[in-house]
């Protein structure tokens, strides 16, 4: 097992900066997720940890040992790719045991390890099957098995569930997480799917345009996003941003929007310009009978355990999560308000969340 540290790691391809100088620490035994849209630099970062790319500057430490210039094969790391790269002409058992046979391990030990891994992944009954006859999920289990069987210091996974359909992905998410709990191996997992990240990560690093914007527990990232991008990328439906076309002073505890006064957490910083936003999660917005932003119901989505309302207002379109018992009809006029304790002010100029009584990280 291992601890992974990135020190000022930067990667350029020609003039293009794929990853800006980044610092990162993945603790021993942690499930660490790198999350971001395509092209954000997450896979490049993973490939540098694996040794498939050499950083332009900076160093990578594996258990305090500098591995920056070591080849992939010398790093004791297993890589699981998005597309299950299995050997089509070998059966499941031979696919799983392949890395061990390459290491010239004793056949009795190979047998024992394959048995152990296939039990863990519940594919014992498939050992003799041809991999080309397997269902998507089973193929991915075999690919995982081939990574686990080596007992590497760390696992690196590049969207390993990306090609599975939704229902199955949910199931595999849970399975992977359980597997991780059991073998406690340091894992770095790359995805663009925020639900996968939230479900599995002990920690999440959100990346965009080559930069790590925030690094923290799923709960921290969800409830206290440091930038507007993080707020909108995490959560489904995403965070609502109410535009405020004036500056907000340090010490402010309320904001007036279209003549209505709303409480906000006491601000410890003021805004730079006069184009700012209040960030509010859908479950922290409410329909109100008192003063509020007036709007009209544009859509109502039934989800069994709850409803998501889309409200068009004079200051923009917002999504509100309400209990399944609340019934509203399309085009109905409503007023909306929000929770004063968890609202976050985002500076429109810098995109950053301002420090406040609530936003303390």
């Amino acid at each position, binding site marked *: 097992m291992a601890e992974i540290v990135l020190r000022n790691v930067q990667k350029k391809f020609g003039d293009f900066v794929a990853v800006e100088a980044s610092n990162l620490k993945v603790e021993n035994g942690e499930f660490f997720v790198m999350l971001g849209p395509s092209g954000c630099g997450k896979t490049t970062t993973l490939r540098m940890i694996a040794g498939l790319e050499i950083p332009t500057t900076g160093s990578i430490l594996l258990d305090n040992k500098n591995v920056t210039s070591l080849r992939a094969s010398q790093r004791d790391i297993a890589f699981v790719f998005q597309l299950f790269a299995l050997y089509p002409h070998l059966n499941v058992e031979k696919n799983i045991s392949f890395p061990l046979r390459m290491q010239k391990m004793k056949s009795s030990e190979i047998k024992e390890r394959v048995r152990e891994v296939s039990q863990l992944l519940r594919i014992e009954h498939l050992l003799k099957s041809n991999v080309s006859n397997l269902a998507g999920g089973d193929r991915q289990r075999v690919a995982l098995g081939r990574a686990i069987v080596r007992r590497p210091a760390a696992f690196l996974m590049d969207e390993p569930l990306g090609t599975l359909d939704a229902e199955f992905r949910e199931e595999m998410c*849970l399975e992977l997480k359980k597997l991780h709990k059991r073998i406690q191996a340091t894992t770095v997992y790359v995805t663009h799917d925020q639900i996968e990240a939230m*479900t599995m990560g002990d920690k999440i690093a959100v990346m965009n345009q080559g930069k790590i914007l925030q690094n923290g527990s*799923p709960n921290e990232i*969800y409830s206290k996003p440091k930038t507007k991008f993080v707020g909108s990328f*995490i959560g489904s439906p995403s965070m609502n941003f109410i535009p405020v076309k004036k500056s907000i002073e340090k010490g402010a505890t309320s904001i007036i929007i279209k003549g209505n006064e709303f409480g906000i957490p006491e601000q410890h910083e003021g805004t730079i310009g006069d184009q700012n936003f209040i960030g509010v999660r859908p*479950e922290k917005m409410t329909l109100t009978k008192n003063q509020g932003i007036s709007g009209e119901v544009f*859509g109502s989505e*039934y*989800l*069994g355990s709850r409803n998501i309302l889309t409200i068009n207002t004079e200051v923009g379109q917002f999504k509100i999560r309400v209990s399944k018992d609340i019934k509203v009809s399309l085009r109905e006029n409503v007023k909306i308000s929000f929770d004063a304790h968890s609202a976050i002010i985002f500076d429109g100029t810098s995109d950053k969340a301002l420090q406040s009584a609530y936003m303390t990280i």
Partner: protein
Amino acid sequence: MANVKIENVSINFGKTTALSNVDFEVKNSEFFVLLGPTGAGKTTTLRLISGLERPDSGKILIDGVDVTQMQPAYRDTAFVFQQYSLYPNYSVFDNLAFPLRSPLRKENPEIIEKRVIEIASLLKIENKLKNSATELSGGEMQRVAIGRALVRNPNIFLMDEPLSSLDAKLRGNLRVELKRIQEELGATILYVTHDQIEAMTMADRIGVLREGELVQIGTPAEIYSCPVDTYVACRLGSPQINLLPEAIFEFPEIPTATKTLGIRPEDVTLGYSGLEGTVSGIQNLGADTILLLSLNDHEVFAYADPAKTYSYGEVLKVGIDPEKTLFFDAQDQLISA
């Protein structure tokens, strides 16, 4: 717009039965969703209605007229495919206008222009009309593809997973918009998907397909709260409904034929009374915390208080309310109250 009836339709491809005695009606101005996994027969149903396939038996009626043997062109249906197929050498405007310029329904240019602009503004692509179709993002291309169907006033819109190639956020937005547009136009839509969220959020009624058979038809709320069997119960809701053997909880009175209990994750109570369950999975989704609990040999999903912190191995009391429990018999059928 029209009312479309599918009467006892069956079709086989070689030895495979694609659809077997499928019988349903899409009412005028209804948003009807066929939900099922790959291979359930969803796309075949659309192809039968549009005339791209002929059934082995059964009838298709549009506004009471039997069209079973009619050519596609005379049925006046509009198809939206999963993969947007636009004319790359045409502008957005010309792509949208194309169906109205067809020799079968030649409209005059003023009417075409008016209609195209109307639909483009509904789909929020009015500022892209002069763009070439290749200068659009994926979401915009799919809007144009949907728009090309909407410019016509066909008997029915047939939509084959039109949102599935888009990313999650865009899909979420288009869901709401498509439903709204359907309401405004009073359009009759038959929409097929394997995505239960699309089905739940857009449908007036859902038909659940399983291996070529229509197993249940109803409103989303009806199907969610009264699924006819355990298969349907598992198709709607995420995380899935919990299915547990009846012996696990001691209920004072349950139907005698009961073999399995069905409890939605939001109806499981934690902390007060019930059986001891060990936390074996924690999903912190921000607005929700979903726990996976092990009860003896069984696993139960439950919504938990997102403000609290839970840890693996923690033991909680897991309770269920008989009022909110579904009872299934040995054949997995719902025992109605």
